[in-house]
């Protein structure tokens, strides 16, 4: 499968290894366990204890995952149909325009977008969600287009020769063959969404950014490390789940 993957910042080749890799989740669980043991062995002062109480940390983790996952789902709902549309013959002239716009959009810093949206429309979860979707949409969109375009045209010809209509060719030939590339894009989108969800704290949308920012402002190392490690664990964990989905959802025989 020849997919152009050398001009992206992230790893977007479909992952190759097929055996179930359990070292990542075991490592992540171990990291959380070590963190927990370390924090509970410390004598927290009153400020640290207030930030690091179990309920607040749990809520930050849930908010963070919720924000990242809902943004990812929205991205799929928007980018997959749009990407499919762009590969239809009548939309061919639109492709360079949309891709150029998307590339310029990629140069917009997530933080700037977030702050601008907050200044225009107010703060909160919804605004953060919009910013996340805009920043994370490109990988899925791009990989949907590339994934369908790289399908061998002789296969499409063959399907047409068998009397299939365009909609059936799309459903039975093009999409199944494009799925591995699309799923690789999905993984990148998840990573970006988790990252931008951290910055969402600046527009009061909750998440683990709250704990990190508290650590920086209060100059408390245990708080900083808790926030940083938990965020990294969530990012790596969701990325691992994305990799798992990549393997499980791939059509057999591709």
């Amino acid at each position, binding site marked *: 499968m020849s997919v152009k993957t*050398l*001009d*992206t*910042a*992230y*790893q977007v080749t479909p992952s190759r290894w097929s055996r179930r890799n359990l070292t990542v989740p075991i490592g992540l669980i171990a990291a959380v366990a070590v963190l927990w043991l370390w924090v509970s062995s410390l004598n927290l002062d009153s400020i640290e204890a207030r930030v690091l109480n179990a309920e607040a940390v749990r809520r930050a983790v849930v908010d963070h995952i919720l924000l990242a996952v809902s943004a990812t789902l929205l991205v799929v709902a928007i980018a997959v149909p749009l990407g499919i549309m762009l590969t239809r013959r009548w939309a061919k002239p639109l492709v360079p325009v949309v891709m150029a716009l998307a590339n*310029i959009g*990629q*140069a*917009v*810093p*997530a*933080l*700037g*977008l977030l*702050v*601008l949206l*907050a*200044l*225009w429309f107010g703060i909160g979860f919804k605004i953060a969600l919009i910013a996340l979707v805009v920043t994370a949409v490109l990988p899925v969109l791009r990989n949907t287009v590339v994934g369908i375009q790289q399908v061998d045209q002789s296969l499409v010809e063959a399907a047409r020769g068998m009397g299939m209509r365009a909609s059936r060719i799309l459903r039975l030939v093009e999409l199944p063959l494009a799925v591995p590339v699309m799923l690789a894009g999905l993984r990148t989108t998840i*990573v970006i969404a*988790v*990252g931008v*969800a*951290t*910055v969402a704290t*600046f*527009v009061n949308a909750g998440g*683990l*950014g709250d704990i*990190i*920012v508290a*650590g*920086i402002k209060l100059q408390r*190392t245990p708080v*900083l*490390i808790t*926030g*940083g*490690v938990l*965020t*990294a664990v969530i*990012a*790596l964990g969701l*990325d691992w789940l994305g990799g798992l989905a990549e393997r499980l959802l791939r059509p057999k025989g591709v």
Partner: protein
Amino acid sequence: MTFSRYLENRWDDLLEQATQHVLVVILSVVIATLAGVVIGALTWRSDRYSGLAIGTSATLLTIPSLALLALLIPLLGLGWAPTIVALVVYSLLPIVRNTVAGLRSVDASILEAAKGMGLRPARVLWRVQLPMAWPVIITGVRVATQMLFAIATIAAYVAGPGLGNEIFSGLARQGSANALNQAVAGTAGVVILALLFDLLFVLIRRYTTPRGIRV
């Protein structure tokens, strides 16, 4: 205050922040390119080691930037140091990956020919392989640079340099006359710099690619 008046009044400050933004990105990209090319050149022969290098840098890129900056504070404090370390870490993946891919793409018969001419392996790498892989490597560097312009804005929160300061100070003054001006100036500044550098890379690529393989 209108945006144009704001630009006029604050032009010197904005220019200074933009300069610092460019400086921190260039410094990080240069360090990352040196490190990434060396890592790629050492590991490209072995699937195992190059896979390890690429996998590790992909894992590091997965960590959200604010989290990485936070974890660097206890070690490096605030300011330029954690900013540069984080930016270097984030640009490793595209550079290492493209170096490995570029070095591998060189035709085996060309390497044979170089060997037949009596070049030792180190010279084959330096005189033949790296120049031929260069267009692919420079693409990785370009992509990394683009990404760093955006990530560097977040570093302003740990007292890093650059246009992120403008954005954060706009956020802090929410409701005041200049809040929106500051956020727009900071964001647009980063976009303009990123696009300018994209153009610059077209030139860099053209003039650093050996004449024989220019297309």
